[in-house]
């Protein structure tokens, strides 16, 4: 009886041994996609795909990449078109970044992002970048590489000059509607790309471009700043060069007599300057407060973009009051926001 069972199992196992088909599963027969750029031109999606070129012999240094293009009425059609042109089945599991071109960010990013969220091969921690130029130009820049794009994403943590986001973060912001999605902004000059601030979205369309200082201020206000450095001119002449670390922020909301947010920013600073510690500390404190307040004024009041998690805080901490609001977004825009900064200078 046992032998019959064992033989039966072996036969079943052998018959189901279809997965090891040598052709289908060979890595070299697959298009290993490293990054995708998406443009929208005349209601048609244009995809530029960067893939790992395994045809060349193994060498030293960076991975050699090649490009392929495709277009279609939907992202899926465009990707299928790209794959058909190369004759290989795409492997999206290694895709590290997506660049949203200028045309796309103006017209709406929810449809392509929905596709990437739903399709199982794309991982939710893919870095999303925006660009005011076309994604194709960005992808074909001279210095484009996966490592560079990863470095761009890490800029948030190292300098605070941009705000990087992953697919799940952007999509969560779009679907909840309680916060504005933000992505890193890639600029191109002399065929070379560099990170230059961030793009904030109003709904799923680009609403505003954040400068480096605005990015820094936003990170400080949200409590997401890991390491920030800045330089500004002192009133007495000369520059003050400082860096911030261990940044924390706390948002308190009070709803008696209208909505009022108190954002307390607490951080350690290291500075280089000729002045005394007390003066430096005071100047840095003033600088940060000014930056934060002007960023809030620009983005929240003028552009109506809540990138500071104010509405989310209201929703989370005072749901009862939130429920009573007809237009919470409007209420937050019209709210009073106070910034309190507390800096501890270490020299």
């Amino acid at each position, binding site marked *: 009886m046992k032998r019959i069972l064992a033989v039966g199992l072996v036969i*079943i196992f052998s018959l*189901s041994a279809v997965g090891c088909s040598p052709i289908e599963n060979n890595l070299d027969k697959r298009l290993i996609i490293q990054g995708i750029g998406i443009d929208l031109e005349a209601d048609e999606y244009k995809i530029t795909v960067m893939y790992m070129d395994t045809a060349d012999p193994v060498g030293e240094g960076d991975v050699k990449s090649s490009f392929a293009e495709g277009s279609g009425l939907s992202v899926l059609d465009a990707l299928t078109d790209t794959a058909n042109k190369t004759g290989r089945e795409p492997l999206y599991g290694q895709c590290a970044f997506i660049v949203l071109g200028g045309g796309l960010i103006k017209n709406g990013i929810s449809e392509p992002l929905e596709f990437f969220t739903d399709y199982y091969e794309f991982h939710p921690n893919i870095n999303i970048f925006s660009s005011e130029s076309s994604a194709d130009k960005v992808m074909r820049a001279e210095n484009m590489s996966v490592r560079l794009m990863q470095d761009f994403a890490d800029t948030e943590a190292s300098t605070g000059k941009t705000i990087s986001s992953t697919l799940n973060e952007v999509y969560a912001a779009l679907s909840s509607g309680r916060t504005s999605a933000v992505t890193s902004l890639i600029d191109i000059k002399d065929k070379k790309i560099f990170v230059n601030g961030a793009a904030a979205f109003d709904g799923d369309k680009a609403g505003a471009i954040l400068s480096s200082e605005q990015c820094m201020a936003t990170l400080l206000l949200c409590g997401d700043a890991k390491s920030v450095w800045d330089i500004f001119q002192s009133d007495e002449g000369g520059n003050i060069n400082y860096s911030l670390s261990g940044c924390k922020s706390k948002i308190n909301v009070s709803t008696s007599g209208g909505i009022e947010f108190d954002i307390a920013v607490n951080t350690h600073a290291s500075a280089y300057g000729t002045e005394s510690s007390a003066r430096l500390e005071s100047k840095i404190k003033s600088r940060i407060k000014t930056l934060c307040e002007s960023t809030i004024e620009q983005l929240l009041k003028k552009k109506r973009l809540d990138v500071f998690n104010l509405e989310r805080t209201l929703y989370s901490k005072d749901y009862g009051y939130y429920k009573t609001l007809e237009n919470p977004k409007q209420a937050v825009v019209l709210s009073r926001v106070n910034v309190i900064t507390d800096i501890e200078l270490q020299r």
Partner: protein
Amino acid sequence: MGIRNKISASQLFCLLLLSRGVLSVACGAFSGSGDIGSAALSAVIALIISILLSIPVLYLSKSGTEPLQNGAGRVISGIYALYFFYSVCITMTMFTVLRAETTGLRISIIAVPLIMTAAALYGSYKGIEAIARCGALILFAVVAAFVLLCLSLLSKSDILNLPPVGSYKLSDIITNTVIMVGEQSCIPAIIFIYTHVKGNVKKSVVLWLIVLFVCIFALSLFISSVLGDYALTQFFPVYSWARLSSFGVLQRLDSLFLAVWTAGVFVRLALLFWVISVCVRYAISNTVSKLAPPVFGIFALIIAVAAPFNSAIREAMLNTGVLLFATAFCCLILPAVLIIKRRLGK
């Protein structure tokens, strides 16, 4: 003649925790049922209901399995066999759907369920002692994987992602509670495992329920804090949560975690097949009980393989109302009938 192959109460605890826990984790007790944060509240309610459901089962089990082996008891044993077969179908369907939706169909759709069924049947053939020992080791691996997951995702959690309690919809709470209670097929299984356990079974069962739902409670809050509203778009939020984990250069470890959870599903299926063989032994005979698991396994395999392609089968298997009714029937009605029968017999 006493039963020789006995497992300890702590082994029973590990077996039940793994068997039930992996269903919530791998296949998702909160699949597509609204805000995952509300699952935390559902867990509390489900705990109370589960403890209540386990009372008649434990009371019946104390008196041994004789009521199940005579007269009407044999019919009831047959009904239990069908119930556990239904549980097997649900587990395999959910696992196949999870696999199809998260890893695609590069691996043949039939290969994995087939190997899973064969392995689980082999495990059931080895007996409850082997399943319990194996389960204890696999539980350790699953817990270790979870701890690693939680550590890697701790930095990604944001308290603002947690929805306020007031925002929980009653319909979501009820749906999640129904799912959690409906999946408690391990409670009626205790009737058939009881005589094979040495030690304090009641304590073990109560502890299992408490630990299980505390874990579900904590897990749902943690997942909610990491995924936020992104979880609303995911059919398997636990898997989506695991996809965010990374350790330095090692990223995209979800497939590894899925493999570990697969081991947990194996233990569950092996246990269910073993319980089916015991039920059939009480209902019919020892010889037929040896054939019952492979026969049931083949049917379950067919259903599981067809489910990703046939929405009718999929909906039938994932119908939470039917599942709840079946579980409540097996936890309350059938034990009550047997208890009354025993009392009348005296």
